[in-house]
């Protein structure tokens, strides 16, 4: 751990500004990045797939996919990447920063929107800006780690959830109208009770830590 690890954080103040991490946090994440990528400059899906702890996660593929989703790069492009650089990796990670004490209400609101957008992108796999019934059902199925039994329940639950979204947002639909899918505004509306900015965060280490060869 010589001078090399401190390089990235200090060298690239733009990173600090764009992602909101502190230089120490960026350094730690860079170390992790190198570990995952095998000291290369980019990470591919296989690298993330190989993480053993992720094996138990029911939404593993969605999480990995989120890293390679262009929409999460705030670049207003759509589609997915094959490999991501450290900067893109950091961009995705920045969605999980916690709110700070000094934030104003507007900043908190903006952070909440950003996090909700991330979640929305995870659900909206075809990128058309709406979460259809099918996409939502897939989410629920993954959560239930469906066997054949749960598929029926997944359908029921999805239908009930969708119905709730529709009822909340478009209360008066005629019998012939069709609710195409959850738009981002509706998504925000139904999840506003959850206070996403306080829930969706993890702790990023400030101090240097040693990962003893764990991947």
């Amino acid at each position, binding site marked *: 751990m010589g001078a090399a690890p401190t390089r990235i954080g200090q060298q690239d103040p733009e990173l600090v500004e764009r992602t909101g991490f502190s230089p120490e946090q960026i350094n730690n*994440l860079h170390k*992790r990045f190198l*570990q995952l990528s095998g000291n290369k400059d980019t990470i591919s899906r296989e690298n993330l797939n190989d*993480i053993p*702890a*992720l094996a138990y*996660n029911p*939404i593993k593929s969605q*999480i990995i996919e989120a890293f390679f989703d262009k929409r999460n790069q705030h670049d207003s492009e759509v589609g997915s990447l094959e490999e991501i650089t450290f900067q893109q990796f950091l961009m995705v*990670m920045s969605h*999980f920063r*916690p*709110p700070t*004490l000094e934030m104003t209400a507007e900043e908190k609101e903006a952070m909440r929107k950003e996090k909700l957008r991330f*979640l929305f992108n*995870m659900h909206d796999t075809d990128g058309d800006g709406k979460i*259809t*019934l099918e996409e939502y059902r897939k*989410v*629920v199925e993954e*959560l*239930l*780690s469906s066997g054949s039994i749960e598929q029926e*329940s997944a*359908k*029921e*639950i999805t*239908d*009930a*959830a*969708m*119905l*709730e*979204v529709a*009822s*909340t947002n*478009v*209360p*008066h*639909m*005629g*019998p012939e*109208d*069709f*609710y195409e899918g959850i738009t981002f505004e509706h998504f925000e509306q*139904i*999840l506003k*009770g*959850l206070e996403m900015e*306080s*829930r*969706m*965060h*993890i*702790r*990023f*280490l400030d101090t240097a830590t040693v*990962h003893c060869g*764990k*991947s």
Partner: protein
Amino acid sequence: MPSRMGARAPAGFGRSFWELGLLLLLAFVLLQGSVFPYGADASSQHAKDGCSSTHEGKPNRTKKVFPVLSFEYDHIKTPFEVSLWVLFASLMKLGFHLVPRLSSIVPESCLLIVVGLLVGGLSKLIGESELPKLDSGNFFLVLLPPIILDAGYFLPIRPFMENLGTILMFAVVGTLWNAFFIGSVLFAVCQIPAAGLTHLGLLSCLLFGSIISAVDPVAVLAVFEEIHINELLHILVFGESLLNDAVTVVLYHLFEEFSAFGTVTVLDGFLGVISFLIVAFGGVLVGAIYGILAAFTSRFTSHMRVIEPLFVFVYSYIAYLSAELFHLSGIMALIACGAVMRPYVEANISHKSHTTIKYFLKMWSSVSETLIFILLGVATVGGPHNWNWIFVTSTVFLCLVARVIGVIGLTFIINKFRIVKLTTKDQFIVAYGGLRGAIAFSLGFLLEVEDEEMRHIFLTAIITVIFFTVFVQGMTIKPLVELLAVKKKQEAKRSINEEIHIQFLDHLLTGIEDICGHYGHHHWKDKMNRFNRKYVKKCLIAGERSKEPQLIAFYHKLEFKQAIQLVESGGGGKLSSALPSTVSIQNIQPKKPPPAPEPRERVLPQLPKSREEEIRKILRSNLQRTRQRLRSYNRHTLVADPYEEGLNDLLKKQKMFELEKKIKEMNNYLSVPVATSDSPNLRRARLASGRQTDFKPDEQQNGKKQTSDPQAYNVKPDPVEVPTIQVELASPQSPDSVNILDEFRKDKEKDEDTGLTMKPPSGPSAPPRKQSGEEDAKDPQKLTRCLSDPGPSADEGEDDPFLP
């Protein structure tokens, strides 16, 4: 004699409540005082009678006057008095809510203390000295456990665990700081010669500090329940009040021991720390063990549902007593027991047992709390006092100061580790919510020191602090919360979307943590959940429920609640949904492309595909739900619970109603005879038979006479009622309906374990009927049969597993 006293009370009914209350008070107190001498008189009277009669006829046996009505108070004295007190407390509680303005200004605890003061004062006037004291045996063994069990059983685990670090900091470090600060500064104050308290040694002051420093769960519960602040603050203050019991126990015993000796060494301090760890973790361990035992027992109670609540209560109480046996922290044992057993017990017990447990716990804790406050008031009047201005005022002042400094200091440290920091407003509420209560008083009462005077001084000071915190802080906290615009509790119930996303977030955050590579909070939580699901649930939960994922359990609970709402709202009325909306299932089902137009000229509009989809969905869901319910009921319940089965029907009825409503809206020209009769039996029957629902016009169309269905009690098969303009429902001849049937046939062939096969007697008969496509007469009935409950023969079959 008692009847004479009692007769006075009803006389006051016509007047205002206060007079009634006072009358009751009077009656009660006089009863206490006067009954005993009367009792003595009466029995002595009889004795005299007996004696006199026997004196007369010494040689032979004289006939005694048979005591037609005798009076023996001693026999029932204790239970009678206890019951009277409980009744009195409950009546008081009732009364406060009859006076609306009062309960919104003054918290209940204050009012109860005032009532206690009144009773104490009255009885002192009358000269009655036999008042029940808030002695420690009563308090710690009888009055306190229900409150703590109620708190522990319904403890919101998630926020508690998320803030555990903060709570522990406040509970342990905060209480220690309070105790030492108050103790030492008081000692300094006592050194002032003017106070006349120089005989109080340092250890005595520290002892006093340890008694007075602990935040009291009873008082906190009583006050915070009424102000509805947000979950975080509530759990912080409340959790602190629960967990500081360990600290209090250790400090109390430590100083009590040492104040006898007068000196303390470093070794003793070290032993104290060890003792604390043992007390705390030992208490939790004892509680957890009993909790697991209770959960395990509940796994086998499916035959004996009636005593399920008893296990919960008894195991918890024994846990408390066991912990007290070893001088471990009984409160922590009780909390641990309740929190550990709850998820497993709730998966095992019936819905009714769950309700019973909830209501009994609330009832007992409520009565306990009331009694505690009243007795506190009584003890204030009765108890031995020794008022020392300097001591008392400095105690009150120091308590406040210590609390404020402690909270601010600790928050400063805690915020370095917390992600979501505590704001100044939060800190203020936490500091202000540090109420003292009856535990402090009981501990003071329990004190055994040679210096009685000192004990009296302590008691007086403790009571003053309690009064101050409960009255002043308790009354002002509500307006302060409003003033500072502290975030209030979210009243809205959790929706299915929120639940889905909470789970999704859990997995997402765990995954991100894994990618980041450090084992954080979420990682361990996820590990524990997996361990729980894999091993523990299999042991402790009976039957199929052990495999049920949390989301499904949540969803079913939600549906159950909705069904109950439906029942309570009168059933037949409009479907209660959270928001009035005309959106229904069909609006979200994706529309399929319309079929190729039929060559045959058709008068009737076609059944829209959404309708088909909905029908299919209902079919599937009904079958699915019946199957799932059946599975969860298949625990050899002794008596098939009619209410719960009725709810089952009601859930289906809910769907049916939506369907009906949609049909109604879609075609104004059709008048589907809506359910006119009100009796639930009839509705149930009608539902089961499928009569008078949408499919009636179907049959009309064919001009068939309605085949009688055994379950239809009040069916009026009156084709004349229905207008001849037909509904757009598909006739059996149309390819659409054939599609439905076809598909259903296909469905049925695919998975044989659908609901239909649950009825063995009619099972074999159903398919052959279906294959006969030419039997149009049977078709409508078949269709209705598919959509409704299985017929009566099927019901009997279904019942078989339920009966022993």
